[in-house]
């Protein structure tokens, strides 16, 4: 068994020995339902698709993903287990990726448990199931982006609360980077090329096309690059701060 897989296995199992996993999953399912039926007007739109369901995923992830990621490294640093972990024959990269994949798998489990939505829409009408599948994949990839940010931030602090708050703020900037509230900060002094670059970072823009059922290679590259970047920074941060 590779060291990365051992770490993955331990981390994934650790969600389920405490109530964290169950509380999270229940709240996630409850909120996705509320948003889809009440705010997304799932019935009133009278269309056999899950767009009202997926539309709110970025906003749910904004708060729920940092709640998962906040303990990833903060807890290791606070309890001192990071010293144990980093003196086992495991590279930092293995540890970062193993823990990250465990958190991502956990999100995948939560997302998979929304399957009653899919059954409902198939019972009521005949939706395009490939679009739904693409949306699920897109939602999971986006969750991976949020998680990579959260994992990196949690390595910066021993406090889970600080980790949560900073992750939410950064994820919020990434969601809205194509919108005036973020762009206005740069408008007055940054050149247009920089503005365009920042605008292209928006999770919402990239998710919009995916949730229509179009998995564009550019969106996949965007999220992959984002995940790799944040995990790389995560490794660097741990290297520098593991002992402090």
């Amino acid at each position, binding site marked *: 068994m590779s060291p990365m897989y051992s770490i993955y296995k331990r981390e994934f199992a650790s969600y389920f020995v405490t109530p964290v996993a169950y509380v999270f999953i229940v709240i996630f399912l409850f909120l996705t339902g509320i948003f889809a039926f009440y705010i997304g007007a799932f019935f009133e739109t009278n269309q056999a698709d899950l767009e009202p369901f997926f539309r709110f995923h970025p906003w749910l992830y904004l708060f729920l993903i940092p709640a998962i990621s906040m303990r990833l490294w903060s807890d290791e640093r606070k309890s*001192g287990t990071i010293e144990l972990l*980093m003196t086992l*024959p*495991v590279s930092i990269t293995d540890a970062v990726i193993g823990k990250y994949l465990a958190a991502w798998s956990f999100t995948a489990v939560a997302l998979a448990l929304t399957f009653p939505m899919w059954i409902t829409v198939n019972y009521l009408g005949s939706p395009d199931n490939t679009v739904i599948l693409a949306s699920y994949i897109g939602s999971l990839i986006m969750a991976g982006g949020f998680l990579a940010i959260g994992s990196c931030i949690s390595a910066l602090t021993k406090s889970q609360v600080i980790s949560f708050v900073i992750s939410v703020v950064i994820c919020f900037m990434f969601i809205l980077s194509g919108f005036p509230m973020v762009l206005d900060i740069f408008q007055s002094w940054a050149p247009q090329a920089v503005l365009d670059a920042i605008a292209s970072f928006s999770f919402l823009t990239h998710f919009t096309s995916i949730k229509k059922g179009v998995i564009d290679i550019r969106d996949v590259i965007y999220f992959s690059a984002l995940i790799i970047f944040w995990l790389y920074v995560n490794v660097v941060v741990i290297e520098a701060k593991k*002992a402090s």
Partner: protein
Amino acid sequence: MPVTIKVKSLTKSFGPIHAVRGVSFDVNHGEVLGFLGPNGAGKSTTMKMITGFLEPTSGTVEVNGFDVRENPIAVKRSVGYLPEGAPAYGEMTVKSFLNFIADVRQLTGSSRQKRIDEVVDIINIKHVIDQSIETLSKGFKRRVGIAQAILHDPSVLILDEPTDGLDPNQKHEVRNLIKEMSEDKAIVISTHILEEVDAVCSRAIIIASGDILFDGTPAELIAKSDRSDIEHAFRVITTSSADENRETAAP
């Protein structure tokens, strides 16, 4: 006796604070080295550098011929380490924790379960095996930490205060365990308890403010005191150096 741990002019500074200043020593196979010194002397920092947790500011550490900076994974494979305070994943049971360590240490096949059972038996933690670690007493947590460190039967053992928080009987057990293991390992322990040095160590190093003040056998350490008392010897060595420092610092 082959040299197993080679520490050469090891230095560590945290900003302006020099935690360890140019420490050099060797540990041979079959030796138990006792690391003594006042709090904040640099004992733990030195151990953290040997195990590859901390990067030295300068100097080198070699374990079984591998440089800890160039080949950290090889060093970590042959070292068993009990960090200060015996950190462990509190929500895990003792059993799942030891299984995790066995996974990471890549113990496989039939020898794996046998070794886990053996260690559980040696360390005497059988009756808490299904308890989560956070519910254990300090003494048991420490024992789980030792179990984790010796699980892969490493040739080098680094134990940071292995008997801290144990009751006298448990201390006695752990000391016997260290003595038993010492034949085919190189062991470094740090401790505050001076009688321990006499009981288990074949060599003692006294370190204070990052410098080595004494390096010799426990008998030689006792000989430093005109009262043949190890505690007195320790005080003589550690306080006289403090006096010297004061003299040199004075104008």
